[in-house]
């Protein structure tokens, strides 16, 4: 099986589109939680081929977009300490904090290095025994196990110059907070594919059960998403609410239990601040006591001072699905991918960036 091209066949897609058009009668609002789904939906023009009865809303599923300014400010402050190397995934560098960005302090001389995997940070620490290496641990359940693995390895190697600033976030509590806030009325949830590979589809059962909202886990190819929408429409039309998987080649009910164990070996849930959504209980992950010597929060005592939010930026409402990027007065004017005001315009999976790239003002 070819994992991409076989799921992009126009002929199969038109069959699915026809099926959705035939079965959808009641107007429905579906939310795609995940930024990668937003990108696929725009990249293939899925909104254009859906019947008028089906609306898709973009959710908060971009880890960079939801990182709070206070967290960014802390990382920027850490990067300015002498003999500190900050190891980060690329997109984070350009995200503006309250006053500056990692990219800007790097240009001024801070040692900020782009890595592609958590193990790269371990390698940097091994190669630079006289410097402190701080890995920015960012991401949902998808990336957390790899960061956890790097911390376990650092402990095994007795590395004393490696630590992690954990911004890790959990998606089900965020979805719960979004639904509890009651800002958006949803008739279905396009559940994240990569996250669900780790958590299993079981993670979404509370949404179907407690909120009566149909849930379908989707992959990222156009046929995956169309199949998911077809399954959601069927559930909605039949008055059902259950969790289904339209991505069976990747996701199982119980998920990746090895990765889950690794995560809970290293991390424990804690409250976390989400940009635009405030502090959500049990939605963050901090290092457990036995790994505290690898916790950058404890190794370094940093107070970056008060934060500042960009004026006029509606990233928060965009992340909650209450508004779309084109509702923002800054979109495409003062806020563009070249000179972003908010994080959603920086990340390649941010809603604002996606709207701008694939449709501009006509998105």
């Amino acid at each position: 099986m070819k994992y991409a091209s076989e799921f992009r066949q126009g002929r199969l897609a038109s069959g699915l589109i026809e099926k959705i058009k035939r079965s959808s009668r009641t107007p429905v609002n579906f939310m795609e939680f995940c930024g990668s789904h937003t990108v696929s939906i725009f990249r293939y023009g899925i909104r254009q081929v859906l019947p008028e009865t089906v609306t898709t809303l973009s959710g908060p599923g971009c880890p960079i977009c939801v990182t709070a300014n206070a967290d960014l400010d802390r990382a920027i402050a850490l990067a300015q300490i002498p003999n500190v190397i900050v190891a980060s995934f690329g997109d984070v560098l350009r995200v503006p904090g309250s006053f500056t960005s990692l990219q800007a302090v790097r240009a001024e001389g801070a040692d900020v290095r782009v890595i592609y995997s958590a193990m790269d940070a371990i390698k940097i620490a091994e190669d630079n025994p006289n410097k402190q290496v701080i890995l920015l641990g960012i991401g949902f359940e998808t990336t957390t196990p790899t960061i956890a693995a790097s911390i376990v390895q650092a402990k095994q190697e007795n590395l004393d110059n490696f630590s992690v600033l954990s911004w890790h976030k959990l998606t089900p509590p965020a979805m719960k907070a979004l639904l509890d806030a009651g800002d958006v009325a949803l008739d279905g949830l396009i559940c994240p594919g990569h996250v669900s590979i780790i958590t299993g589809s079981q993670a979404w059962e509370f949404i179907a059960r407690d909120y009566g909202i149909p849930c379908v886990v989707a992959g990222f190819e156009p046929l995956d998403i169309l199949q998911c929408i077809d399954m959601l429409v069927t559930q909605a039309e039949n008055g059902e609410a259950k969790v289904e998987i339209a991505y069976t080649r990747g996701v199982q009910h119980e998920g990746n239990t090895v990765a889950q164990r690794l995560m809970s070996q290293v991390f424990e849930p804690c409250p976390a601040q989400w940009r635009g959504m405030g502090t959500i209980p049990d939605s963050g992950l901090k290092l457990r006591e036995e790994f505290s010597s690898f916790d950058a929060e404890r190794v370094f005592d940093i107070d970056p001072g008060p934060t500042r939010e960009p004026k006029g930026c509606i990233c928060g409402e965009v992340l909650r699905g209450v508004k779309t990027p084109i509702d923002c007065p800054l979109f495409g004017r003062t806020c563009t991918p070249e000179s972003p005001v908010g994080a959603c315009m920086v990340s390649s999976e941010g809603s604002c960036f996606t709207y701008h790239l694939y449709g501009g003002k006509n998105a």
Partner: protein
Amino acid sequence: MPETILLAHGSGGKLAHRLIEETILSDLTNPMLAQMDDSAVLDLSGRTAFTTDSYVVSPIFFPGGDIGKLAVCGTTNDLAMSGARPLYLSLSFIIEEGLPLSDLRRVLTSIHETAREAGVQIVTGDTKVVNRGSADKLYINTARIGKIAEGTNISGGNILPGDKVILSGSIGDHGIAIMSKREGLHFSTDLQSDCAPLAAMVADIIAAGATIHALRDPTRGGLATTLNELSEQSHVKIVIEEELIPLRDEVLGACEMLGFDPLYVANEGKLVAFVPPEDAETVLASMRGNRYGAQAAIIGEAVSANTPSVVMKTVLGASRLIDMLVGDLLPRIC
């Protein structure tokens, strides 16, 4: 001679002379270079094209090529895109102290072979050596002069509504081949860079008697950026079809893994031609007859519009705007 490049190799003194005579000239010699004068004296008449480019790719050796081949192809191709026949090339090295001499020799051999294939003479050059850390191994600057044949008028501003868009082969091969060898991101692929001199293909198309309105090689920024440039230059809307664009499975797979859109990934051996519809099949056949154009395909057309834009029909039959590349997709790929 020591086996690595020293600062003294760039000093203009004895070591510098030996480097030039024993290493550089032995590989690249021709009558004009052999004169060792301060400048090359060229006899030019008629319409002449002149272009320059600098090459800073990292790593300097990659699957399917190296910085030397890239430097010769890149500048040749820029020239060929205006329909010029490449004649003379200048070659300037900026070398980081400590570069193994064997690496320089390998690059020179590659330059020599590529220049021979492209039918171009290297007529002037320069070598500088900088402190360790002031450059990354090796940078190359080239300039090139070519002759434009009588009656040839190829320009990005000449596209007319109705023109067919012909792409000479699969996109993204170079960018992904480089990416696969970057530090920290090794992934296993058999993919080779498409780095190739395209002047012969352009000469074939011209010789086939077809009218060509515009030619462009979609390098940095990929096909998407090139089409946007052309759309603005000629003030047309360009409509392409996703299903018609040649794309290797390896590139598609790597792009999915890395989160890239292949439309924005660099090429170094592809061109896109805009030709009147009646000449499209002739140009296509001519491209396919060339070793670098076997996968050529008609991927869309230009239509009239009030505002220039590039639109792609997706596999689902929807259409979306294709914008220019924003920011930097891959650092230092050429």
